[in-house]
């Protein structure tokens, strides 16, 4: 996207947030049976957002950088719609599919909204993000069966299929499979999550599956993409939390003056703003590295994760504190930012986990 297009896109998104996603609307969407608004989801598509995934050349990939404003808008207004099922991990995994026709067809399914996909990789009991105990076995080369459990799949309700990582008993290497949402032997359990969203645990029992690609590279690419988009979302949340906090302290009077007049509080806000600024710069640079398949990308992604996770937890924590009692109510979005920050750590790894990976990384 060139600069003019980018600016226009950002303005469109800002208007969308003003008109479609105020606090009351946020609450109402959450009460719908899906836990999000199908109407908003359709509207995003009508706005052409899904088209951002269409590559310029048949064999290329659409730039991730173009998605950053979308995710920032989602972060700021705390969209409930499961963006990940279209924009995040599935795109990366589809990118690893060797057969060009199959690859194009799957991508087309995302772009047209016909086939959003759930990313079913994580499992419980391990260190959460890395391990795979789900088993796959081949009946014949064309027909595979999966057995095992996957945890906390986002957007499972709207998905027509799931991208599932599983280990082949003989070869010991993970691979990625596509399982139809209506596949036999697939059970789905829904529950609410800490950010007031909806997730599902999946259980596969001899569920038929299509082999897509080898797992290791696909999972790495998917997780990197997930981390970068989550960082863009986090940026939106930081902007929202910082703006709300500054406005609140400007308005709120105690001891006969606006709280913003106290220098101790000014410095707290300044620290929050500095962290936001650092993250803005870092997100842009790592997204660029991703789009150019830069060397040492995996380290850059880990650096991004550490920095953003820390900054977001710091900012959301401080925002709650600076709002006093109001910060812990359901009325303001400040508490929601805090809870969503916990969820992002849960989905993409905490700063500690990323720092550890960084220190062990070659």
């Amino acid at each position, binding site marked *: 996207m060139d600069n003019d297009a980018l600016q226009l896109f950002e303005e469109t998104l800002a208007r969308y947030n003003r008109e479609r996603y105020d606090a009351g609307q946020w609450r109402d969407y959450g009460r719908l049976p899906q836990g999000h608004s199908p109407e908003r989801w359709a509207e995003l598509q009508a706005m052409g957002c899904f088209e951002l995934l269409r590559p310029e050349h048949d064999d290329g990939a659409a730039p991730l950088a173009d998605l950053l404003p979308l995710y920032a808008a989602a972060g700021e207004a705390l969209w409930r719609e499961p963006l990940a099922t279209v924009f995040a991990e599935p795109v990366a995994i589809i990118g690893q599919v060797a057969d060009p026709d199959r690859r194009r067809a799957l991508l087309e399914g995302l772009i047209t909204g016909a086939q959003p996909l759930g990313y079913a990789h994580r499992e419980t009991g391990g*260190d959460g993000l890395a391990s795979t105990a789900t088993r796959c076995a081949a009946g014949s080369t064309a027909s595979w069966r999966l057995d095992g459990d996957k945890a906390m799949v986002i957007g499972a309700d709207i998905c027509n299929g799931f991208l599932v990582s599983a280990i082949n008993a003989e070869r010991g290497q993970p691979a990625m499979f596509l399982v139809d949402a209506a596949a036999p032997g697939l059970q789905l359990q829904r*529950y609410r999550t800490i950010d007031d969203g909806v997730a599902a645990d999946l259980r596969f029992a001899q569920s038929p599956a299509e082999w897509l690609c080898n797992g290791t590279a696909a999972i790495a690419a998917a997780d990197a993409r997930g981390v970068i988009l989550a960082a863009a979302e986090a940026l939106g949340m930081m902007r929202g939390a910082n703006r709300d906090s500054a406005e609140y302290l400007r308005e709120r009077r105690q001891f006969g003056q606006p709280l913003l007049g106290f220098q101790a509080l000014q410095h707290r806000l300044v620290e929050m703003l500095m962290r936001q600024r650092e993250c803005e710069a870092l997100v842009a640079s790592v997204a660029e590295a991703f789009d150019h398949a830069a060397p040492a990308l995996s380290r850059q992604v880990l650096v991004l994760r550490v920095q953003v996770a820390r900054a977001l937890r710091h900012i959301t924590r401080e925002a709650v504190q600076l709002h006093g009692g109001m910060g812990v109510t359901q009325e303001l979005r400040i508490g929601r930012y*805090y809870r969503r920050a916990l969820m992002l750590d849960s989905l993409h790894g905490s700063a500690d986990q990323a720092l*550890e990976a960084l220190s062990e990384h070659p």
Partner: protein
Amino acid sequence: MFGESATAAKAGPAFSEPERSAVQRAAAAAGFDAARFRAELRAFCRDQVPADIRTRMRQHQYFTREQRIRWQQLLQTRGWFIGHWPKAQGGAGWGPLQRFIFIEELERAGTPWLTHFGTSFLGPVLCAFGNDAQRARFLGPIRDSTEWWCQGFSEPGSGSDLASLKLRAERSGSHYRVNGQKTWTTMAQWADWIFCLVRTQAGGKPQQGISFLLIDLKSPGVTVRPIDTFDGGQHVNEVFFDDVEVPVEQRVGQEGDGWTIAKFIVGRERLLVTEIGKAWHLLGVLHSIAAARHDSPTFRRRTAELEVQFHSLRATAYAAVLEAEAGREHPVDASLLKIRGSELQQAIHDAITDLLARDGLAFQIEGLHGDLDGYRHGDPRLPGLLHEHLHSRAASIYGGSNEIQRGIIAKTALRV
């Protein structure tokens, strides 16, 4: 040392904890044996907690009003619930040290939080400032937990700047007519009575026109409205007063004594806000979760950091308690304990949540109040521990925020 033994050893040096000799000496001077008292409390918490309450403790679930009352009454069968009241009022005349050990051990065992508003706040206020009629009317039901109290200090416009409060009480004959609003009132939804700071006089220094009134929440004109909080609970409330008539006999002290009484309340309980026993309990929880999971050098380092903070805070708390026992007060202590106590609690919750997050942060709120009917994702403690994590964010806000506490230290220690 953190209770869930096998895991504690793995996480760091196991602390043996003989009662410190300074503590034993001070206890002996106060007429009790600290080690024996502690052992007695531990045995009580181990053997005497009713099964239904124990189940909720284990799951970190929310206790019902009835469970809390039953637990308080059980403590009072030993005279412990009001152990810190003067003997003349039925208490055991405990000093700050014995009271501290009592609360520390209850928290450490994870037993239900005692609703301090009656027993710790109003009881001592009535003993010190009330008249005989008030003591005769109100102390018994607090002792027996048959009347539930809540604290009406904060207002929408008066949080940190409490002295600016506006709830108006106008004298008319033998009554006050009360108009205005309190907010953030903890457990008002369960309370029978509220003690309030009210403005009986406008003008002058704001602190001077404040009085202390006891108000029956069933009085005509009182409305209690719950506030939804982000921890998934409804435990704070707005309380509205619309021309509520309050008999003059329900004023404690003289008109204008309200601020002095409020300061007395803060002073009395300043050591307990450390919640050191709760931190102890939570460290046990952290270790039990860590042991069941992949643990890493990073995480071991983090728990070691928490252990350092815990022991520093506990030592500081006991130093402060010993000072208080000797009738002295260090200018930094009270605020320090509030700040560090809340910070430690929050840091332990952060670590617990980071571990739980690896299996996915489901938040099935129904699980706070009993077993889930349907499918449960993850650890059965998940709803309760996440609720407690979120609630712990308020620990640095209520009871005088950490910013206000730092301001107090600046004033008293730096004399600025």
